[in-house]
């Protein structure tokens, strides 16, 4: 048992560092710093994706046969740590991390051949179609209907909280194909071309002032049966597989460390009245407590990774713990950073994206985005299975 890097891993880390040093330019870093959201602005994300794809590193978790680098879990971990430390724009959302593994596992050869290269190149951007206005935590109650009509499904209903749907070309969606039996068994997984007639998209601005979410409406949208993944009624199983897939292979430690480092920088700078927050004992206590939480999260990630590497499963209690812990850490950092602003917290910059505004000294820009980052951080304990759902999962395991 140890925390040591091998010589190969050290060489790999240095190669990643050199790449980031050379390719992740000032404008990209600044755009990401000024982005209050958890996903990059599409034009920023695309620019960065093109550079990373050229290196063959756009999809770290993909096997070689589909154009991925075929890395070990440890390499993926190191890659993530380095990219986050360097402040890369986060473009690997629903496309690379979610729909691609589903297609690799459940897709037909034809679906894989058609869709996977388009994801890798950035030609297709995918949106998620899970939640509905009436189905959030109780996802299996979803009502968007897909009625079979010859070689097509006719889709009617609405999906909500679809991140970047307004920039996306396609959506993967859970739809209802049957109302009989268990509600989970009537769910089917569909790939929907967002340019099809009958689709309309309503933007939803979040409290951080950014347009990332959307509501998507389907009005007699005809989706070819060939764009179904798996069998009819297999949708719930596929959605669950995706959750499982993420376990042991989704890392947040690098991002958390990067955010905390930004907070340290902000707190080390003299305020208008000359004080430095890092010298404030109350601030220092909170700052250190959060750092201990980040260390704990890192150890949980590394432990989960070790289990997966040894052919095991991290287990539901550690997995849900990580989800809860990460959200709390992000929120704690964002809150503490915003607390530094003083009266400047009242100032609000409405323009989006912020990186289009004339450049100012880094600290001024950090102060400008701090409130929005705090507002955005509240979403962390809601999406991807709220913290209450995570507690529910843990309780069910404990009290079984």
């Amino acid at each position: 048992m140890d925390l040591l890097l091998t010589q190969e891993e050290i060489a790999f880390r240095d190669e990643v560092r050199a790449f980031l040093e050379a390719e992740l330019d000032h404008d990209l870093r600044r755009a990401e710093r000024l982005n209050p959201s958890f996903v990059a602005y599409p034009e920023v994300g695309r620019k960065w994706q093109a550079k990373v794809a050229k290196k063959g590193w756009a999809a770290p978790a993909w096997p070689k046969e589909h154009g991925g680098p075929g890395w070990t879990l440890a390499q993926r971990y190191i890659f993530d740590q380095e990219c986050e430390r360097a402040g890369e724009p986060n473009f690997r959302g629903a496309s690379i991390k979610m729909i691609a593994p589903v297609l690799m596992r459940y897709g037909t050869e034809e679906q894989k051949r058609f869709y996977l290269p388009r994801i890798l190149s950035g030609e297709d951007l995918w949106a998620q179609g899970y939640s509905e206005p009436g189905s959030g935590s109780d996802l299996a109650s979803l009502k968007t209907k897909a009625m079979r009509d010859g070689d097509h499904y006719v889709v009617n209903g609405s999906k909500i909280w679809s991140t970047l749907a307004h920039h996306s070309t396609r959506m993967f969606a859970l739809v209802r194909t049957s109302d009989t039996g268990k509600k989970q068994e009537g769910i089917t997984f569909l790939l929907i071309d967002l340019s099809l007639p009958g689709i309309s998209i309503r933007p939803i601005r979040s409290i951080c002032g950014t347009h990332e979410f959307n509501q998507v409406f389907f009005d007699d949208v005809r989706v070819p049966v060939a764009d179904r993944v798996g069998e009819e009624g297999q949708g719930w199983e596929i959605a669950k597989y995706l959750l499982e897939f993420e376990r042991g292979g989704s890392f947040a430690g690098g991002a958390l460390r990067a955010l905390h480092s930004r907070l340290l920088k902000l707190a080390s700078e003299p305020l208008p009245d000359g004080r430095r927050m890092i010298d404030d004992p109350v601030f220092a206590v909170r700052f250190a407590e959060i750092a201990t939480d980040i260390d704990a999260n890192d150890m949980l990630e590394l432990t989960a990774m070790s289990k997966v590497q040894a052919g095991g499963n991290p287990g539901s209690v550690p997995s849900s713990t990580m989800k809860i812990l990460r959200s709390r850490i992000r929120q704690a950092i964002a809150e503490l950073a915003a607390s530094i602003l003083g009266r400047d917290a009242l100032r609000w910059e409405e323009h989006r994206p912020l990186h289009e505004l004339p450049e100012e000294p880094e600290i001024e820009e950090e102060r400008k985005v701090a409130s929005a980052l705090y507002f955005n951080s509240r979403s962390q304990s809601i999406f991807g299975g709220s913290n209450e759902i995570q507690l529910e999962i843990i309780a069910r395991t404990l009290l079984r």
Partner: protein
Amino acid sequence: MDLNYSPEQLMLKESAARFLSEVSSFEFRRQIIASEAGMDEEVWRGFAELGWLALPFAEENGGLGCGPVEISLLMEEMGKALVTEPFLASVVLAGGLLERVGSAEQRERVLTPLIAGMSRPALAHMERETGSDLGCIATQAVRDGNGYRLYGRKALVLGGASSDTFLVTARLDNEIALFLLPAGAEGLARKTVRLVDGSRACDLMLDSVRVDEQDLVSARGGVLPEIEAAYDRATAALAADAVGCMDALLAATITYTKQRVQFGQPLANFQALQHRMAEMAVKCEEARASALLATLSVDAPRTIRIRAVSGAKAKVGRASRHVAQEAIQLHGAMGYSEEMPVGSWFRRLYAFENSFGSTAEHLARYGAIVRDPAVLAGGLLREPEAY
């Protein structure tokens, strides 16, 4: 990087759990802590027979050459079983320190009987005034012919109530030196102190205690860093003990709420309580992760070690307080009584929080290190050269 326990390590944990559940029931523990000695000689002999007293020592010193991971596994089980025998004090703290600073003759003299279960050394370093600065001690060593005389007081010597040998620190020519003393030395007075977790420590009064030259273990600068490292090793081990207590509290709370019926159903059916238990589990996982980081860092260079150990002390301290308080609350009035083990784990965790430096002191020690941007930004994986 690999954080999987080896099959041998898992076997050790399992056999420790089995042995301790046989010899250390809650009823037995209640009797032991009510007894004069606060520990059981037969249990101690059991530790010796199982090889636990030999575990961390090098093979050349008669030990088994195991590492901090094995120690942490034992400590977790000892926490669960509410062990009051001074394994941490004698084996990890005093034995561990002597192995690193003692001469071959002194190692033979102290470690061989310790491993055989015939002797229990204790480290007498801290004094009333010693806070987070371990160098703050007043006990004096004065040269006396071909030996020394010691004057001073030591406070809360862990394992000191039943020890036959003391490792005593004292100022010698303004440096800190370490001496070996038999418990029966003339001028040495021992006062047993009952601790909040039911174990026993002692206060020592040293009034012109004569020490021979051969009992001077180490002087001249080198010993204080070793003492600090020994306390860090003990702190990491104690964090594992605390994790064991937290796990036990969670398990006891689940069992209790499943069988306690109110309003016509088991308490565990109420979602308000289910989520509080789930939150306890979250804290247990977080604490386990932190404690493991400390365990895997005790032999690393000082900065890495301190960051891991003090970070874990602070994190486990905070998490354990939450779990301990919730366990009492969910047990209701029964949790508040001494009749159930919950209260014993609660008090043991309170002792953890206040041993080897408080949660706040360790957070400050940790904070001083992670304020360095390079340390904060760096992850936990390290290069082999870092050792």
